[in-house]
């Protein structure tokens, strides 16, 4: 090999960054939004009040509702609201003979216990799922695609560090108005300043998909997955329905039993199998409030008496513990609002890094085009895909939020249409990107992003009683912060659109003083 290490790393960085670059950008955009998935849930379900503390009265209403409407069901479930909001006290039940996923559900106000009619939405949860399951394709394909993209990301980060020869001397360099040099500076800055986050989130992201990526550890040691799960996680006592009716103890009693067993712990989810039977079994899953808290084992109660049933315990092990910490670091469930915003801002840094990297590919090659007015096919493709993804994906998210406020409440498949709105807007911007001159397409799609994000708080003000005019004075922080973030995003896109619109491409740089810039690309 004649090339030096740095040249070969630069080549690797360019192509490993470009080919899966759009998928990586999308993962970054949606993953960043997912740090606030509960808050987005709350905003997309404005009927829910902001209180999340479950009162004894609400528990009693849940008991009554399950007994009245879920009588004769094979199983009941009670999901407690997350302290971050976005979900009420949710009940569901499955009737005998129904499909495993075919559950009837209703949502109660955690304070009053009254039933709330929520609009149908997939909420922030969809944005979270999309960042590793994608959409309109089988989940397993999507995960393989995401795995490959994330592996490429890790390679791109490491080769990028090697390529970027002046990582420390250029640490604080950001030169505007210098064409390719500025793009390189911006790409380096967003990469280097947030480097600990980029490395962590990519590596732990791969760790969350561990068994997709490397299933052999399980297949070599266990006959099947079920066997693996049984030996690693706590398993429930297997009990058949006895056929003899017996009243199931009220939820409040189960919650109290959990508090005793877990020394003050609170359940986040209660599942009851064969309710109303003498052999009813309740499974209580603990909520973890703090990273420092121990992971509490699932608690199993006899439904008729409320006494604790014996169960196997989760196998403790170094590998499991390491894996869990990595997944925790990735999902940041433990993060308070200070740290959560840091995660979010770091995520925006990653998004900007992916975007500037994609743009840089074009910027570097534009100067070398034989005829800049008629670029070759590869260049045109990358340029248009950049527009359609970099501006299109956020545009889709804005459309998703807008659809949440504008679609009629009683619409059939309403939640699906919110998702469709996201992809219609995104697909539209891709079509737009391919059918307009590149620079105008940039300005127009970025301006459309700004307009749609600005429209979100406005529509919220018009369609709910929790717009900024009310949420700010009443300290309804989730709503206020959401709307203000939308305005900040709108301002950011408007600023970028204006910058692009007023940008005058400089004549091809005179190359006499210095050789062309060669590092990181």
């Amino acid at each position, binding site marked *: 090999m004649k090339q030096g290490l740095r040249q070969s790393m630069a080549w690797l960085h360019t192509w490993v960054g470009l080919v899966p670059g759009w998928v990586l950008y999308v993962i970054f955009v949606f993953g960043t939004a997912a740090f606030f998935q509960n808050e987005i849930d709350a905003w997309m379900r404005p009927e829910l009040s902001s209180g999340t503390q479950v009162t004894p009265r609400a528990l009693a209403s849940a008991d009554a509702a399950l007994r009245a409407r879920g009588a004769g069901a094979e199983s009941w479930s009670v999901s407690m609201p997350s302290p971050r909001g976005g979900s009420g006290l949710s009940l569901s039940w499955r009737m005998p003979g129904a499909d495993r996923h075919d559950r009837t559900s209703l949502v109660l106000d955690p304070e009053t216990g009254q039933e709330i009619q929520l609009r149908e939405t997939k909420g922030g949860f969809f944005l979270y799922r999309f960042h590793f399951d994608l959409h309109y394709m089988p989940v397993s394909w999507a995960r393989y695609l995401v795995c490959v993209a994330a592996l490429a990301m890790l390679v791109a980060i490491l080769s990028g560090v090697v390529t970027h020869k002046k990582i420390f*001397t250029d640490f*604080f360099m950001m030169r505007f108005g210098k064409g390719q040099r500025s793009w390189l500076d911006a790409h380096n800055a967003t990469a280097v*300043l947030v480097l600990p986050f980029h490395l962590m989130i990519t590596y732990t992201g791969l760790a969350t998909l561990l068994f997709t990526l490397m299933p052999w550890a399980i297949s070599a040691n266990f006959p099947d997955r079920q066997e693996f799960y049984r030996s690693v996680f706590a398993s429930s006592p297997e009990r058949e329905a006895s056929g003899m009716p017996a009243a199931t103890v009220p939820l409040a009693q189960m919650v109290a039993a959990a508090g005793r067993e877990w020394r003050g712990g609170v359940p986040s989810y209660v599942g009851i199998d064969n309710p109303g039977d003498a052999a009813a079994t309740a499974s209580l899953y603990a909520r973890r409030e703090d990273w420092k808290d121990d992971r509490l084992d699932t608690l199993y109660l006899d439904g008729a008496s409320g006494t604790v049933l014996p169960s196997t315990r989760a196998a403790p092990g170094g590998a499991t513990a390491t894996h869990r910490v990595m997944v925790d670091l990735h999902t940041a469930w433990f993060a308070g609002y*200070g740290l959560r915003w840091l995660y979010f801002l*770091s995520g925006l840094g990653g998004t900007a890094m992916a975007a500037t990297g994609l743009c840089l590919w074009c910027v570097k090659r534009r100067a070398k085009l034989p005829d800049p007015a008629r670029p070759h096919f590869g260049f045109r493709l990358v340029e248009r895909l950049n527009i359609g993804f970099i501006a299109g994906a956020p545009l889709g998210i804005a459309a998703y939020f807008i659809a949440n406020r504008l679609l009629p409440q009683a619409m059939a498949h309403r939640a699906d249409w919110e998702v469709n709105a996201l992809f219609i807007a995104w697909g539209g911007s891709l079509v737009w990107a391919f059918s307009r001159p590149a620079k105008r397409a940039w300005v127009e799609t970025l301006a459309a992003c700004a307009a749609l994000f600005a429209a979100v708080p406005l529509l919220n003000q018009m369609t709910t009683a929790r717009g900024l005019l009310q949420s700010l004075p009443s300290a309804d922080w989730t709503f206020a912060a959401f709307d203000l973030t939308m305005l900040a995003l709108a301002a950011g896109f408007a600023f970028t659109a204006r910058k692009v619109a007023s940008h005058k491409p400089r004549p091809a740089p005179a190359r006499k003083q210095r050789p062309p810039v060669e590092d990181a690309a």
Partner: protein
Amino acid sequence: MIHLITALLSLAGFALLLMAMPRHQQDWLRRKLPPGTSRLLKLGGLALLAAGFALAGQGLGWGYGTVAWCGWLSAGAAITLTAQTNRERILARWRR
């Protein structure tokens, strides 16, 4: 409170590291500082960042604190970079 102090330590640390670099001394002061001063600034900057780590670890727990410290490192560096990029504007205001 711990978050705030960690953030300020990180910001001050990166500001010192910035001023420890001769190229940026030229930007801000229009002259270069003697090498001894630059070294002191560099050590001081690193010491402030280390102090931020110790504080975050002590105050927030070592696990949580490390994660938060990394976040504030990025934030502090980003703010310093923003100031560096807008130095002409800042200096113009200063001189007026």
